[in-house]
């Protein structure tokens, strides 16, 4: 798959696996099949970048969604993007972002740019509760 409709989610622990599972529940297996989960568990910095690089090459992904901007997944992803100008890295992944990407009829930058908008828009205070101002 190299048409830009495929993405890797690289995150801590089981987060990526959980997000893909959630996409499957919400949007179906075909949408979830566009997303490859990747965990940083047990891997050091160099090995993490090597393993992620291999995942990018075998999957044809043109975007990696990561969780923390300071996380090892983001560092590894940016290291690979430095070698491959066709690869985008988006930090702060959330479910709304992934649903937008996985359900997008187009691929490439248009798909992940829209996904970033959707992901940002999904973050809001729904109820302030007693601690609100």
């Amino acid at each position, binding site marked *: 798959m190299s048409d830009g409709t495929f993405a890797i989610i690289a995150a*801590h622990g089981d987060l990526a696996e959980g997000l893909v599972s959630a996409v499957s529940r919400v949007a179906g297996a075909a949408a979830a099949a566009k997303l490859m989960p990747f965990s940083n568990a*047990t*891997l*050091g*910095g*160099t*090995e*993490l970048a090597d393993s992620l690089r291999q995942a990018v090459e075998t999957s044809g992904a043109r975007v990696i969604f990561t969780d*923390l*901007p*300071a*996380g*090892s997944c*983001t*560092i590894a992803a*940016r*290291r690979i993007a*430095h070698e491959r100008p066709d690869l985008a890295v988006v930090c702060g992944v959330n479910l709304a972002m992934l649903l937008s990407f996985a359900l997008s009829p187009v691929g490439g930058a248009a798909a992940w740019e829209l996904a970033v908008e959707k992901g940002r828009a999904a973050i809001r205070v729904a109820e302030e509760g007693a601690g609100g101002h």
Partner: protein
Amino acid sequence: MAIEVYRIDDRLVHGQVVVGWGQPLALGFIVLVDNLVAESEWEQDLYRMGVPPEMTVHFESTTSAMEHLREYRLRPEHGLLLTGDTATMRALVEGGASIGAVNVGGLHHRAGRSPRMRYVFLDPTEESDLRAIAACGVDVSAQDVPSALPVPLDDLLTRSGG
């Protein structure tokens, strides 16, 4: 002393360092001691962009770290010194850096390393480095995040679980 933690972690600057230790210790700065990173502007940008705006990262070689350590210790903020391998930390300790405790925060799976804990895998040279650090009177223990119990070096080296 402004440097609160001396940590060995092969992921260098990452979530556990910036968030896991950074928030409870209110870290103001990180000193990353790595000869390769110290020579590469790009590598430095990579790690610098990963930290929040209230935190600074300083890049040092083993040699320059020895020269600047006193200045870092006089800073008013809390700091964490980070090396990516045991050899660099050993060089600092044996070079007279006056370090009281070393935190083995993460040495992950790699060919030639044996599992000791979920986040600590060691090869014979790394075990030797850690023993040498301890022999200098430094308290060496494994601890990935502040809420975890530290595992002393003697205990760590008898473990065989990944």
